[in-house]
């Protein structure tokens, strides 16, 4: 699947939804293609909820919330792997987080102490230590056309 919709905030495609793509004033000369494959998808049920952003959208400064992730994409889940390509982002360093919203309720379900109950993953397949990984462990250099894969797991 190809998603090339860089200036439209909400576009429904045949196979997926770009929830938000914050307008990036990337000229054609700067555009890069970022291909992401989600692997180990355990079923066809629900959706894959994907968010891509830079450091400021993953790590908050003391006492503040992180910025919204500039690219948020919802794709239907398919057993095995699901791929897409976007050129909505200017060249830079990005991290990708994804979770498999198996029951389609739009949320990463967690148990009563906040631990995820649905499969999730980050770029570089970083898993973190007792919590989400740090941006430094998840960042991907997307200064040129780049393809990555991310494994989702509980």
């Amino acid at each position, binding site marked *: 699947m190809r998603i090339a919709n860089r200036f439209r905030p909400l576009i429904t495609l045949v196979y997926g939804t770009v929830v938000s793509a914050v307008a990036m004033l990337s000229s054609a000369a700067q555009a890069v293609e970022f291909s992401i494959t989600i692997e180990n998808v355990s079923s066809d049920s629900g959706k894959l909820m994907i968010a891509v952003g830079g450091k400021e959208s993953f790590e908050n400064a003391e006492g503040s919330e992180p910025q919204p992730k500039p690219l948020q994409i919802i794709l239907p889940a398919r057993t095995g792997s699901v791929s897409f390509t976007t050129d909505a982002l200017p060249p830079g360093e990005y991290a990708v987080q994804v979770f498999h919203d198996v029951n389609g309720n739009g949320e990463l379900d967690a148990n009563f*102490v906040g631990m995820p109950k649905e499969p999730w993953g980050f770029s570089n397949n970083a898993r973190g230590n*007792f919590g989400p990984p740090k941006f430094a462990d998840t960042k991907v250099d997307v200064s040129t056309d780049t393809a990555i894969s991310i494994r989702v797991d509980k």
Partner: protein
Amino acid sequence: MQRRAFLQQTASALALTSLFGRAAADAYQQAFKAALPQAPWLAGLESVAQPAYDTTVAVSGRWPAALSGTLYRNGPARHDIGNFRYKHWFDGDGMLHAYRFDGKTLRHQAKMVMTTKYTEELAAGRPLYPGFASPVPNPAPVSSADAVNVANISVLHHHDKLLALWEAGSPWEMNADTLDTLGTYSFSADTDGAPFSAHPRVEPDGTLWNFGYLSAAGLLALWHIDAQGRVVKVGTVPAAPMGMPHDFVVTDRHIVVLLCPLHYRGIEGSTFLDAHEWAGDAPTRVLVVDKNDFSSYRWFELPAQWVFHFGNAWEDSQGVIHFDAARAPTPTLMQDNFRRYMRGDAGEERPSQHYSYRIDTRQGKATESALFEQSFATEFPVIDPRVSCRRNDRLVMLHRKATSKAAHPMLTGVSTYSYSTDRLESYDYPATVIPEEHLYVPRPGSAPESDGWIVGTALDFARLETQLNVFDAQHLQDGPIASAALPYTLPLGLHGKFVA
């Protein structure tokens, strides 16, 4: 011999690395091996010789006809992975034991708990994940506590499930007959993976209470499970700075958790134990939660102290909560001695003293006082399970007297105490025997605390055998009335449960 089989199993996993040359034994492993001949008590901290046991031996003495059943026990057993030795006693991978007795014979069965960590590291032939207090080279990220769950602390038999318990993750379900590992156990979808500590309190009617701690989130999780294993309710209480609570108590109205000031400071670049800092000037915070409503709780304060284990708790008609604990001034035993043991060094003695506590919920005051003299150190307090979470008169515990001539630094004997008569009875094991936790086993059909036996295992490092001993609970100081000895030693373990 099965010891060889275990070594071969480990060796085949190591074969690939052997091709490229094996790393030398690490400093702890070298120091431990060097110390063992001069300090034979260290037999209790050797890695278990076999991954599984099934041995039947005859019993000796006057084994009570009415005493039959199974004593399940758990404890750290595998302390070395190839040339790597864990740096702390509590890191050892758990092994579940069943001591089955019928009055004539004792059958000892045991199997390693096949946790994810144990299974992956056995296959790799090297440590992959950081331990509780053992850094490893190039550690893999720990995405959840269950990735490093070694299921090595205690065992719970509840609603016909046999569960091996760790402290910060899921229970591991075991087959009660074969001791095969069935996988992590989930009480419900909403509680899957949440921390379930190693000392759940079970009321006489089977109602189960437990807690769990989430250090990074600064949360205490609370569990209420009925006798059929169904989750009645769960909840969380914000409790930062988190400590490392190991045990707790429950009365007929309240849950009481002591947060000793071993404060969680963040795990970045360190082990879990080293992520904590002892704040000796800070109070011990005492959380008292309404059993009927986990959102209703109060905090009290006690002086800084360290507690692993409580005996029991009950509440009087004046709203005063009474409980007892083995209390140490600091957590030095855990922070220092239990590391030293792994390199063959006993360190200085760090006795804990038995205290009784009162929390006056109407006056808003918590107080404590020593129950026994300082020269009488205690640990592993237990009670007749039929008075759990109710007023108890008797305590059973292990002790060490300051005058002890034992040839080891561990506990040296077993004691009983009656509050009503203020009578303390004790039995001292020989100088070359290390007792493990001893339990109160009621005589079937007797009234609570009236009649029964005290049953426990012990390591005789002179005879190189692990024993199981039975005492008449009313005549403890007469010594064991019956016993059975296995033809091998087992690593010193932690907690058990008797199932009739």
